C-alpha cells in the first residue's frame, strides 16, 4: 500500500514518461505514516527523559558568570555535610535492613513452611499500593509520636515515659522499613519459589539440622536475590521523600531528599544548591541501580532454576507453628490494621484525642461532610483524576508504539530508546521535580504554574512502567500474527491497530491502571511543581498535615484509600494475565 517496502526484486522498470514517474517520486520523498508515528514517539520519549536532566546539570553548574561550583559549595560546603551523608546512608541502610529481615523471613515462612494464615501474606503485600506513603507516615505519627501517639499513650503508664519516638532517625528507619518490607517479600517469594526444595532436603538427609540447613544452604542460595533486594531497597529509601520530610524535618534530621526540599522552601530558593544536592543523590542512585543490575546478572549464572515445576513440599513447623502464626498476625496488625484503624478513628473525631469513652460517644462524620463542601478537596480530587487518567493514557499509548520499536523492529538504536524510557526510573521524584522546574522556569511557554507541568512530570516518571508493561505483552504476541496480517495486505498501521493493539490490550490496561494508582500517591515531584489552586490529593494532605488538621486529613486519607482499593482490585483482576508487578 505505502512505499515502505525494501528494494523490490522486480525487473528494472522501463523508462516511463515523466508524467508517470513524477507523482511516485514525489510520494517517495514524503515520510510514510509509519515513519511519522515512530519518529514522533521516539522524539517525545527522548525529550521527556533527556531534557530535564540536561537542564538540571546546566542549572547546577552554570550561572550568569559561566561554569561554577558555587552551588556545590553552598550545598556541601559546611559541616552539615557529614551529618547529611551520614544520616542518608544510615537511614537507607537501616530501612533496607529492616525491610530485608521482615520481608525475607515472611517469604521463607510463606513459601517453604506450613505456616498458618497464608492468605494474609498477600493481603499485606499489596498495602504499599493501597496506602500512599504520606498516609502511612502520618498514620505512624498518630501511633508513635511522643506527644499524641497511641502506642505511647498506652505504654506510658507502664514505662513512665514515651516509649517510642517516630521523630528520630530510628523512627524513620522503622516506618520506611515497614513500608518497604512487602516489596522485599515479593522479591524473595519469587526467589524461594525458584529454589529446588530437594537442595534443602538433601542437606537434611546429610544429617544437618534445620538451622544449619538454613545457614549453609538456603541463605547462600538466596544470596543473589538478597543482595539485589538490599540494593533496590537502599536506592528506594534514598529516594524516599515522605518519611524524611514528615518525620525528619521537625527535629532537623536531614537526608538528601528532605535537605533539597528544605533548601527550596527557604526564600529565595537556592536553585543551584538544590541542584547540587540533587546531582549528588542522582549519582548515588545510579550507582545503586547499576550495581544491582550487575548483581542480578551475576546471579543468573549461579541460580539453579531448572525450569521444572517443583512440587511444593512445605516444611512442617510442628510446635513452632503457633508461634509463627502469632508473628504473622502481629505483623499484619502492626503494618496493615493499626495504620488503617488509626486513620479511620481520627477521621471520625472533631479534635484529635486518644480513644476513650468520651471520644467514642462523640464520633461524627463532620470531617467527611466538610470534605464534600470544601472546594479544595474537590479540586484536588478532580486534579488527581485528570492527571492520573491523562498520564496513564498518554504513557500507555506512546509505549505501545515504543514497545513495537524495541521488540519488533530492526531499527538501529532501538536499544537506545529502551534505555531512554528506563532512565526516569533512576531519577528520584524530587530530583525530577527540580529538573523540570529548571526547564520550565526558563521556558517562554507558560507551562510553569499550570497542571500541565505536573502532567509532564507524571508522564516522564511513569515511562519506565509503561514500557515494561507493553514490552512484556508485546513479547507474548507471536511474530507470525503480525506477519500474516502483512502478507494479507494490511499496511503497518492497519496491522498495528487491528491486530497488535487488540492483543496488547490486557497488558496495556493493566499498565494503565497501575499508572493511575501510583499517580494518586505521587508527592515527591508534585511538591516542587504544584502551584496554589493546582493541588492534587497528596499535596492537599501534605498541606493539611503542615497546618495540623489531622482529623480532616484522615477523612481525606480514608477516601483516598477506598478509591485506591477499588482501583487496585480492578487492576488485579485485569492484571492476572500479564502479572501486575510491584515496582
Amino acid at each position, binding site marked *: 500500500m505505502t512505499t515502505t517496502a525494501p528494494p523490490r526484486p522486480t525487473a528494472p522498470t522501463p523508462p516511463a514518461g515523466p508524467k508517470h514517474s513524477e507523482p511516485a517520486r514525489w510520494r517517495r520523498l514524503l515520510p510514510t505514516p509509519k515513519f511519522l508515528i515512530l519518529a514522533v514517539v521516539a522524539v517525545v520519549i527522548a525529550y521527556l527523559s533527556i531534557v530535564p536532566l540536561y537542564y538540571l546539570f546546566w542549572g547546577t553548574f552554570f550561572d550568569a558568570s559561566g561554569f561554577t561550583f558555587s552551588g556545590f559549595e553552598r550545598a556541601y560546603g559546611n559541616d552539615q555535610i557529614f551529618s547529611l551523608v551520614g544520616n542518608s546512608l544510615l537511614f537507607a541502610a537501616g530501612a533496607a535492613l529492616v525491610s530485608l529481615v521482615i520481608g525475607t523471613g515472611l517469604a521463607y515462612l510463606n513459601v517453604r513452611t506450613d505456616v498458618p494464615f497464608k492468605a494474609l501474606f498477600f493481603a499485606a503485600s499489596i498495602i504499599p499500593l493501597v496506602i500512599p506513603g504520606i498516609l502511612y507516615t502520618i498514620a505512624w505519627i498518630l501511633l508513635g509520636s511522643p506527644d499524641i501517639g497511641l502506642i505511647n499513650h498506652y505504654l506510658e503508664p507502664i514505662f513512665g515515659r514515651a516509649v517510642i519516638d517516630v521523630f528520630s532517625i530510628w523512627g524513620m528507619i522503622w516506618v520506611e522499613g515497614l513500608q518497604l518490607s512487602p516489596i522485599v517479600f515479593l522479591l524473595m517469594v519469587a526467589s524461594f519459589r525458584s529454589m*529446588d526444595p530437594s*537442595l534443602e532436603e538433601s542437606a537434611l*538427609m546429610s544429617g*544437618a539440622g534445620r538451622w544449619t540447613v538454613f545457614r549453609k544452604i538456603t541463605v547462600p*542460595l538466596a544470596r543473589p536475590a538478597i543482595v539485589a533486594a538490599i540494593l533496590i531497597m537502599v536506592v528506594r529509601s534514598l529516594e524516599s521523600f515522605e518519611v524524611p520530610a514528615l518525620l525528619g524535618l521537625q527535629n532537623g534530621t536531614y537526608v538528601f531528599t528532605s535537605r533539597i526540599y528544605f533548601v527550596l522552601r527557604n526564600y529565595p530558593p537556592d536553585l543551584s544548591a538544590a541542584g547540587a544536592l540533587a546531582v549528588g543523590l542522582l549519582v548515588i542512585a545510579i550507582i545503586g541501580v547499576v550495581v544491582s543490575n550487575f548483581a542480578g546478572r551475576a546471579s543468573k549464572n549461579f541460580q*539453579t532454576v531448572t525450569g*521444572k515445576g517443583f512440587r511444593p513440599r512445605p516444611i512442617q513447623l510442628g510446635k513452632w507453628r503457633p508461634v509463627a502464626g502469632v508473628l504473622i498476625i502481629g505483623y499484619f496488625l502492626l503494618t496493615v490494621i493499626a495504620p488503617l484503624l488509626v486513620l479511620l478513628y481520627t477521621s471520625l473525631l472533631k479534635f484529635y484525642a486518644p480513644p476513650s469513652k468520651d471520644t467514642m460517644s462523640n464520633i461524627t462524620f463532620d470531617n467527611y461532610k466538610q470534605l464534600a463542601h470544601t472546594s479544595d478537596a474537590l479540586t484536588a480530587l478532580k486534579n488527581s483524576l485528570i492527571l492520573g487518567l491523562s498520564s496513564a493514557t498518554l504513557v500507555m499509548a506512546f509505549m505501545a508504539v515504543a514497545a513495537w520499536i524495541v521488540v519488533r523492529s530492526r531499527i538501529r538504536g532501538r536499544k537506545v530508546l529502551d534505555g531512554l524510557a528506563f532512565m526516569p526510573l533512576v531519577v528520584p521524584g524530587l530530583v525530577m521535580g527540580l529538573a523540570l522546574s529548571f526547564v520550565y522556569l526558563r521556558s517562554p511557554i507558560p507551562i510553569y504554574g499550570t497542571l500541565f507541568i505536573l502532567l509532564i512530570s507524571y508522564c516522564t516518571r511513569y515511562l519506565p512502567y509503561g514500557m515494561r508493561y507493553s514490552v512484556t505483552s508485546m513479547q507474548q504476541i507471536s511474530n507470525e500474527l503480525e506477519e500474516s496480517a502483512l502478507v494479507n495486505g494490511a499496511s503497518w498501521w492497519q496491522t498495528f491497530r487491528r491486530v497488535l493493539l487488540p492483543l496488547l490490550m490486557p497488558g496495556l490496561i493493566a499498565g494503565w491502571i497501575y499508572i493511575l494508582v501510583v499517580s494518586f500517591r505521587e508527592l515527591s515531584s508534585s511538591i516542587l511543581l504544584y502551584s496554589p489552586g493546582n493541588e492534587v490529593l497528596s499535596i492537599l494532605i501534605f498541606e493539611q498535615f503542615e497546618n495540623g488538621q489531622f482529623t480532616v486529613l484522615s477523612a481525606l486519607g480514608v477516601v483516598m484509600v477506598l478509591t485506591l482499593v477499588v482501583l487496585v482490585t480492578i487492576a488485579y483482576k485485569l492484571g492476572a494475565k500479564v502479572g501486575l508487578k510491584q515496582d
Partner: protein
Amino acid sequence: MLEVQNLIKSFDGERKKRRVREQQSANGDAQARVFAVNDVSFKVAPGELFTLLGPSGCGKSTTLRSIAGLEQPDSGVVSVGGTVLFSVGVNSAKSINVPANKRGLGMVFQSYAIWPHMTVFENVAFPLRVRSRKERPGKREIAERVQRVLETMELLQYADRHATKLSGGQQQRLALARAIVVEPSLLLLDEPLSNLDAKLRESLRFELKRLQRELGITSIYVTHDQIEALSLSSNIAVMRAGEIVQLGKPRDIYENPQNKFVAEFIGTSNFIDGTIKARNGDRYVVETPDGRLTLDAALDIAQGTEVVVSIRPEAVMLTTERPLDAVNVWEGNVTTRAFLGDAVDHVVSVGKRDVRARCLPHISHAPGTPVYMQMDPAKLALVPVD
C-alpha cells in the same frame, strides 16, 4: 535390614477433610478415602537392591520419602537394622518419629540437588562436616574419606571444580558420592537416572549396579522405568494407587504377572480372555474365542474359571509353514510390520483380534502374508480377571 509395616499416608490436605469423611461414613454415604500410600509393608534383606516400581502418582516416591523422614506418614512402622525410626498408630507403643537429619540414611534425589554454591569436594564433605562435634571426624580424615569416595566415583580430578560445571552424568555420580560418604546403612535412590539421556542412562545403570554390589549397601530404588527395575533389582515391588500389587524377583514378575496391571506395566503383552477347559497338574488348557491355548502355571485355578492369558510379543514365533509337532499354533495374517533395529515387530490379525509378535531381526514378513503363530506353553502366563 529395612522393614516397613502398614505404612499409610493420605494426600496433603486430606487430613483436614478426614473428619468430614468419617462423619459421612457414619451416615453410610462415604466416599472412599484417597491415600497416597495405603497399607504398604515390605522387608529388605541386607545388601539387596529393592525397587519400588510404578507409574507416576502410585505412591512410590511418597513411600521412599517416608522412609527418609522427609514426609510424615499417618501411621505405620519404619525400622532400619532393628532401630525403629518411625512408629505411629501401633497399639501399646509410643509414637516415634526420628527427624530426617538424625536417621543417618543416604539419599540421591531426582534432580541430584547438588549445591551450586559449593565445590565438588565441599558437596561431598558436607555430610561429614555437619555432624555433631563428638562424631565429627578430623579435618584430615574428612579429606581422606572424601577423596576415597571421589576416587571410587572417578570424580577426583574435579574435586575443586564448582559443582554446577559438571556434566549430567558427573552430577549424578557426585550425588551418589555425597550419599555414600558417611557409609549409610541404607541408601535411598529417587529416580536417579531419569534426568539423563538414554545412552548415558544405560551405561550408568550398569555402573550403579556394579557399585552397589561392590559396596554392598542396602538400597531402595524408586523408578517408573521397568527396564531399570528389571535390570537392577534383587526384588521389585510394583505399586499402583498407593498399594503394592506384586512383590517378587524381576524374572518372576516379568514371566508370571499376577494381574493385568503388572503384565501391562512391565513390558508389553497381548491379553486374551478365556475359560479354563482342562487342568492336569500345572498344565492348563484355556479355551478362547480364537482357539485353544495350552500353558504351564504354578497356580491353583479351578476348571471353568474365567481367566486372561498374557502373551509376551517375544513369545510368539512366526513361520510361513505350519510347524510340526507343536502345541499352540494359530493361523493369521500379518497386517503391519515395523523394523526396530534389534527386532522386527509384527501385528498379526487372528479372527477379530490383533496379536503383536516380536521377531529376531532376520525374520520379516510383509503385510498380507499368511503366517503360523507358535507360542511356547512355558512362556504364557495366566492372569486372574481383575
